[in-house]
């Protein structure tokens, strides 16, 4: 009987508690939502502010250059010419627009134009493929018919005709992403193993120190030249395009140092307690590295990899430009030399695309990092 009562009391107590608890959790949830709304609000505000300042700045620059052009016309050719120039500028005619920092709306227009251009080029490619289809079929048939002789080396296989027109902006971006990605992988596969090895041995670390100190600050341009010298020689007798290879190797070599240094530091600074545990348990070298040292240095390795990735994006433009690889770097350079009316706007589009992709890649790395390493990192 007595037990019954206490049970009842208990259930009553919990039933009284329940609404309170749920209220607490909803308040908590609301607070959380409020937090994220506030964050979002601040972000939107700062973006608006940025675009506003940019707009004002570009307008001021525009006016300065317009006034200068008009004043110059007045001085050189008289009032009539100055009026003509002023009218031309006001009409928005592309032949006489000041060539300065484009406004946000111009950049937006360019982005839309680049997207339109993408569809035009896509159609071009399809047309091209249809036009070349009979010929390509013939070539394929020829290669099949003569397969035996081709294999024997008596006749050369014929190449199918490919699209050789302009690349769209998307193609360009994809090329750049591929370059950065390949460079990043190269850096990963060079820097992490070497970092581990020199991290494990203080004497190797000392021996390698000069090497790292000398090569770390080398500029992307010099890396490009070094890689160019080597790859060019290796590619002698090979007519295929090596610009992609040169640019990704240069990007990788230029960006790998952060990973190398961080990996070595992470491995060298593993908590002595963990090392002692490994010693007491007499773990073998392999186990010691893979069960203790690597997991404990993962946070630093990832910090290094994230820096590497961002450096890779940063040096990409310069290197692609030099290597004439059909990525964003070359795009920016060509637009700059092109000097068309919307060139500056297109350059800024490229800048934003690079920034945004870089940001997304960093988030991706952060996600991977938090998934595999034991301490969570907040992205900044």
């Amino acid at each position, binding site marked *: 009987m007595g037990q019954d009562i206490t049970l009842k009391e208990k259930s009553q107590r919990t039933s009284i508690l329940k609404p309170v608890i749920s209220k607490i959790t909803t308040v908590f949830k609301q607070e959380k939502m409020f937090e994220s709304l506030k964050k979002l609000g601040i972000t939107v505000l700062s973006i608006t502010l940025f675009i506003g300042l940019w707009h004002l700045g570009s307008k001021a620059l525009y006016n300065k250059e317009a006034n200068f052009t008009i004043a110059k016309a007045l001085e050189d050719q008289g009032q009539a010419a100055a009026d003509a120039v002023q009218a031309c500028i006001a009409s928005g005619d592309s032949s006489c627009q000041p060539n300065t920092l484009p406004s946000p709306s111009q950049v937006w227009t360019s982005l839309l134009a680049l997207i339109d251009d993408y569809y035009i080029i896509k159609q071009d490619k399809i047309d091209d493929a249809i036009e070349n289809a009979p010929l390509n079929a013939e070539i394929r048939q020829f290669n099949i018919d003569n397969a035996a002789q081709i294999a024997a080396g008596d006749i050369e296989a014929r190449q199918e005709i490919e699209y050789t027109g302009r690349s769209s902006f998307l193609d360009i971006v994809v090329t750049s992403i591929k370059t950065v990605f390949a460079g990043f992988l190269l850096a990963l596969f060079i820097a992490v193993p070497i970092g581990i090895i020199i991290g494990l041995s203080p004497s190797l670390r000392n021996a390698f120190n000069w090497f790292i100190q000398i090569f770390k600050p080398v500029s992307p341009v010099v890396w490009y030249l070094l890689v160019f010298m080597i790859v060019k020689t290796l590619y002698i007798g090979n007519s295929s395009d090596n610009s992609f290879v040169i640019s990704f190797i240069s990007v990788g070599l230029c960006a790998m140092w952060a990973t190398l240094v961080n990996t070595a530091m992470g491995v060298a600074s593993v908590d002595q307690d963990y090392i*002692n545990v490994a010693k007491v348990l007499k773990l073998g070298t392999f186990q010691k590295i893979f069960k203790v040292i690597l997991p404990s240095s993962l946070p630093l390795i990832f910090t290094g990899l994230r820096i590497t990735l961002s450096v890779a994006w940063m040096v990409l433009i310069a290197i692609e430009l030099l290597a004439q690889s059909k990525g964003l770097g070359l795009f920016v350079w060509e637009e700059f030399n092109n000097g068309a009316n919307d060139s500056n706007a297109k350059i800024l589009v490229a800048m934003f695309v690079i920034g945004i992709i870089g940001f997304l890649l960093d988030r991706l790395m952060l996600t991977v990092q938090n998934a595999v390493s034991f301490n969570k990192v907040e992205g900044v």
Partner: protein
Amino acid sequence: MNAINTKQNLATDNVIFNSSNDVMLDLSELKKVYPTPKGDYIVLENLNLKIMKEEFVTIIGHSGCGKTTMLSMIAGLNPISGGSIAVLGKGIKGPGPDRGVIFQSPSLMPWMTTLENVMLGVNQVFGHVSKKQRQDIAKYYLHKVGMEDSFNKKAKELSQGMQQRVGIARAFAIKPKVLLLDEPFGMLDSLTRGELQDILIEVWNKEKITAVMITHDVDEAIFLADRVVMMTSGPRAKIGDILDINFDRPRTRKSVLDHDDYYTYRKHLIDFLEH
């Protein structure tokens, strides 16, 4: 000073009564020198201590006298400058799983689960048995320390006390000949500390692994030990005095506190420390 010397002689005499076959750990004329910029610093010198099989010894002494130094030398993590350390009559060569260590900080691998942490050692020592059996060993000890509900929790998610429980399980699970503990409960609050003392002594009662434990806590030293070893202050620290604790086992905290000799022991230790 004189008093201490006679006491030490007494202690050494004490040891002679035991047959040498029962000696698990033998430190003889142990010396440790740390080179410092201001010349060599002799931490330990002429340190002699014999510890029997199935014995639980606690070590007290002033901070900085060289307790950790001595223990890490026994563990093989710190090179010996002079004299010798032998386990079952054989000089030690570096660290090894025959001497388990429970460190002051639990030093679990934070990226592993509790079970993986214990398995790390078990795999190493019981490589010859099946995986299932190894897991059973690990789980058995985790059960013993009350962590049966947290096999798959990551170590970093546990409280300090919980982590140290896993540390205890990890040390016992590899079935060492000697268990070395360096202030394992020093970082815990007194309530958790009591809990862990109980757990430690409970597991130890079953396994009777020779144990050497450093502590700053006089009550802890008496509660756990068969003998309390007092070290003199450094430099050139050595064994100053040894106190036999003649309480029956298994002990409970209450029976120990109620025992008439308890306060005599306590006074002895405190007198030594305040000397």
